[in-house]
């Protein structure tokens, strides 16, 4: 009961002013379960980095946050905030002081946050404790170009965040967190794990044909990654009637090109699906910039599932550690009720 009263007392609306922004959007994990009305998933390209950022600030892993794509962001904050930056950027600045990404940080009112364009990779996430106030469609703030929907941040945009964080929580010892969660690398040569697809037999060379080195083409976007390189030869076989295709589907076009479907993909397609990327490989692929060298390694399903279970275990462990650290400081009210909901997985 007391907690309810204190939550009511401390809930406030913080504001951030965008001073400069490249391609920056309000994002979350997207829309799922809407195939019956033909709605694509969309949502953060690198889902684990987006979830990680939210977990680091005590939010639910599917809460709204800011996605910065292959560009920079400068914002001025007008309240004390608890933030985390994850994804491609290796470091960022608060009032010209450099900070490591992938940690929980306090930003004081009046400060300026500068998140530079990444050197490698292309998606950086900024999560802020609380709820970013943004319009939703079908339960998500995520942009969908087919629905002509989404909130892009530009210079002058003011964003409100409903948060329980405030100066009273800081006390005399300035909080420093060291969760030491490993920051991923985004090298310009990547190996994407996949499991075999239903039409692998249509590849003359079989799954081994995918071990060739391909290059990410500039025409790639959130709908699909186009790869150039070796032309893959297909066995002549009957037409494939359009059917549902998963995010991460590795498709071969009639001309022997490879396309990897990403989160903005149409729900159905009729090209052979020769492999399907694992969930973390989809995140990796969404970070790959044009010119990145790619090989696709087909592994057994149990290898893919073990990898997935390990990653989920690490994220789950982290959310427990964040909850413990916040509770130790008396910050229980900052924690989302269900901070490991995995609702959109």
């Amino acid at each position, binding site marked *: 009961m007391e907690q309810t009263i204190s939550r009511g007392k401390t809930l406030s609306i913080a504001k951030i002013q965008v001073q400069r922004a490249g391609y920056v959007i309000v994002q979350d994990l997207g829309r799922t379960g809407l*195939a019956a009305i*033909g709605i694509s998933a969309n949502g953060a390209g690198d889902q684990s980095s987006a979830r990680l950022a939210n977990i680091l600030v005590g939010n639910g892993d599917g809460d709204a946050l800011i996605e910065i794509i292959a560009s920079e962001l400068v914002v001025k904050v007008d309240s004390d905030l608890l933030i985390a930056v994850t994804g491609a950027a290796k470091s960022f600045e608060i009032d010209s002081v450099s900070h490591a990404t992938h940690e929980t940080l306090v930003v004081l009112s009046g400060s300026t946050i500068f998140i530079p364009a990444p050197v490698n990779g292309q998606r950086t996430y900024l999560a802020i404790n609380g709820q970013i106030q943004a319009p939703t469609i079908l339960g998500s703030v995520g942009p969908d170009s087919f629905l*002509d929907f989404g909130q892009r941040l530009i210079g002058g945009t003011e964003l409100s965040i409903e948060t329980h964080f405030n100066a009273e929580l800081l006390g005399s010892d300035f909080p420093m967190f060291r969760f030491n969660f490993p920051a991923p690398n985004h090298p310009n040569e990547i190996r994407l794990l996949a499991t075999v697809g239903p039409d692998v037999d249509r590849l003359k060379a079989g799954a081994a044909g995918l071990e060739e080195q391909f290059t990410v083409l500039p025409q790639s976007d959130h709908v699909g990654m186009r790869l150039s390189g070796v032309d893959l030869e297909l066995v002549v076989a009957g037409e494939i009637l359009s059917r*549902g295709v998963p995010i991460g589907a590795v498709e071969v076009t009639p001309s022997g090109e490879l396309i990897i479907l990403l989160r903005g993909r149409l729900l159905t397609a009729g090209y052979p699906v020769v492999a399907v990327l694992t969930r973390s490989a989809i995140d990796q692929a969404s970070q790959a910039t044009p010119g990145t060298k790619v090989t696709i390694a087909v592994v057994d399903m149990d290898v*893919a599932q073990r990898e997935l279970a390990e990653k989920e275990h690490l994220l789950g462990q982290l959310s427990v550690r964040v909850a413990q650290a916040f509770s130790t400081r008396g910050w229980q009210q900052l924690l989302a009720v269900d901070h490991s909901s995995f609702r959109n997985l």
Partner: protein
Amino acid sequence: MQLANLLAEHLCHEYGDSGILVDFTNADYEQRWQQAQALGTALRASAELGIVDVVSTYQNVFVSFNPLRASHKSIMAEIELLIKSKPALRPATLFKIPIAYGHDYGPNLEFVASVCELTPTQLIELHSGQEWTIRFVGSPVGAPFLDGPKIPVSIPRLTTPLARMIPGSLGLSGFQTIIYNAPSPGGWQIIGRTPVQLFDLTHNPPVPYAPGDRVSFLPISEREWDSWNKPFHEVRL
């Protein structure tokens, strides 16, 4: 014969670390489609933990699931159970969708007619003279995928797909027809356009039709365009 109907022939493929593709293999196209749609409906209504989404199409069902709550094995078991239960499709509704054929509305009408060795008027008569069946609703946003009338030849796709379809565009490809409800990229030949907004998020459900429903297309003139240019729930289809 009866036995063959009771045992829906199908294959289940693993489709990534959190998906399954069911492929119906009955020799009869209509049967395969009915089985796929029936299974799709049953899976959407299923209480089986961990089902995230279901895409049912001409002869396939793609089920995606949360791998922390379900596995290929648990979902496949659920599929076997539901196939045995033989769920039924809902009764069909007939929609009349107005289309302005040709001209700026359907820039590829003449090409498609010539491929079919028909005049544009004959193609319009063929396209609008018989009922189509909505096989499934897909993307972009609530697009109806239809087939039915005997198109003389399989219609090739555009050699260069369009980056941005005009919403309402009526496409033809293979022996199928589709309406693009959103400004998405697309590769189908465009022969007409409907003035009716068939997808409206302010309405629940946001599209009027469902798989199995029937559609006949009503040719309209340019003059009639404005009187039809409304969301689907404000006109009588």
